[in-house]
């Protein structure tokens, strides 16, 4: 690491030498936590958006299950009613065989899903930006047969959103704790520097240096340390995020695309070193000025 030479040999004391490493570590954790929060936000939005434009309509089987023809007629009427509804882009009856195939693993080899009175499902895709009058559709379907229900996935979306919000909050709390820890660390490092260079500081005072002149020396040193640490730490965090994204993509991804940061999100991550630099410099200045006021 290159050395700068000010009037006070600040780079030489242990506290000053450690400062870039401390800030680098803080930047790494903060950038990683912020990336996590941003990934979760994007993922939550994508998942929510995926569920928002769809409905599922469930037609319960009739009490007398042997009335196969009547049940099929009801399905067709319901499908037609849904398709006539303004705002509906498409509506498809989920094939019974598909439903049975989905159930088979859950019921085991010995059971035959054909013995079960399965409800029929209509998958509905809504036109983008169109509001569907669900109350009216519900009334019309209810008129066809009691018990037909509409699921707009609201409960799912709500739970998902709450869960993601909690995770995001936790990640942002980590960022806040890191910022607080950075303040504390800079205070300790600056106080260490003040103690180590007390004689030099007194000399500068005695030959006419203002507090702000001395504070500027500490600010400069802290700025230099924060730039080095902040950039290195954030760079490491960015590398980690990219590697995780590639790793997730390569392994077939449980949650495809979940670990990819959008360009705008990268800009947010880049604010981490800048924020740390500002926090560190202001903290150093405040600490030095407070200490110098108590000196001769």
């Amino acid at each position, binding site marked *: 690491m290159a050395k700068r030479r000010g009037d006070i040999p600040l780079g030489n004391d242990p506290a000053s030498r450690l400062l870039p490493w401390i800030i680098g570590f803080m930047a790494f954790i903060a950038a990683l936590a912020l990336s996590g929060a941003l990934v979760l936000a994007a993922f939550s939005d994508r998942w929510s958006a995926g569920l928002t434009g769809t409905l599922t309509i469930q037609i319960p089987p009739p009490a007398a299950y042997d009335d196969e023809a009547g049940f099929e007629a009801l399905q067709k009427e319901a499908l037609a009613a849904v398709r006539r509804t303004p705002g509906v882009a498409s509506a498809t009856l989920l094939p019974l065989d598909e439903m049975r195939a989905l159930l088979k693993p859950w019921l085991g080899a010995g059971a035959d899903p054909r013995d079960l009175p399965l409800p029929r499902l209509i998958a509905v895709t809504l036109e983008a930006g169109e509001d569907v009058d669900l109350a009216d559709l519900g009334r019309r379907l209810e008129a066809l047969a009691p018990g037909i229900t509409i699921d707009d996935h609201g409960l799912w979306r709500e739970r998902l959103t709450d869960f993601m919000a909690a995770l995001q909050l936790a990640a942002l709390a980590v960022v806040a704790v890191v910022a607080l820890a950075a303040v504390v660390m800079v205070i300790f490092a600056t106080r260490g520097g003040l103690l180590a260079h007390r004689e030099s500081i007194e000399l*500068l005072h005695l030959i006419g240096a203002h507090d702000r002149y001395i504070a500027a020396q500490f600010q400069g040193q802290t700025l230099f340390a924060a730039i080095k640490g902040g950039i290195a730490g954030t760079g490491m965090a960015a590398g980690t995020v990219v590697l995780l994204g590639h790793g997730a993509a390569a392994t077939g991804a449980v949650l495809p695309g979940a670990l990819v940061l959008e360009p705008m999100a990268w800009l947010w991550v880049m604010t981490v070193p800048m924020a740390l630099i500002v926090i560190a410099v202001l903290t150093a200045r405040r600490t030095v000025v407070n200490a110098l006021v108590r000196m001769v």
Partner: protein
Amino acid sequence: MIRFENVGMRYGAGPEVLRDISFELKPGSFHFLTGASGAGKSSLLRLMYLAHRPSRGLITILDEDIATIPRNRLPELRRKIGVVFQDFRLMSHLTCFENVALPLKINGAGSGVIKKYVSELLNWVGLADQANARPATLSGGQKQRAAIARAVISRPKLLVADEPTGNVDDALAVRLLFLFEELNRQGTTVLIATHNESLIRRFRHPVLHLEDGQLVPSPLRPIVPLRDRAPPPPDSRRFSDPIYPDAPGEGGRHG
């Protein structure tokens, strides 16, 4: 003007190291400060260069009442006081040139001005060839001269020196005293703490004598008449003001 009135000083809760100190130094005067080790010379100087506050009494330095001056005005007052510390207090990581330049730099002088005046002064004190040397590589006498150069570079109104000739040979000591006298002729009030009796006898200036923290009449009397004193060396020419080169007034000094 420098005035001490019934000044007492103690370090922390310890006993008083200075008691009932009263004296006055007229502007442009030159005094020696003498006394045995532990008599309180360095403590008195610390009060004069504003490194310590008195525990009692009134101190006026360059017409500023030290008890009432706001802290934010202390730097301006300190810039008018040149100090030669007994232990030199050179910054070990800076070169000889940078150490001497420090007061000018703090005062906001430009690099051209700094280069010109620091080079001139280093040349005068015989350290031109050591400009880029670190203090650790300098001899005691060289450090002493660098410390003196730093103290006088800003052309102070008050020069306070603690044993400034303690590490130099007699010839250089005399030469340094001529430098102090040259500054004094330009209006700088000078107070030099020293044990060197031959210098005190040779340079006929009043003596403040401390014994056990109190001022007492000096047992020393200057014995070399003024007419017998050696003339100043030819290179002890007047220094132009490094900060305000064109400032009017005595020797280009500024108020």
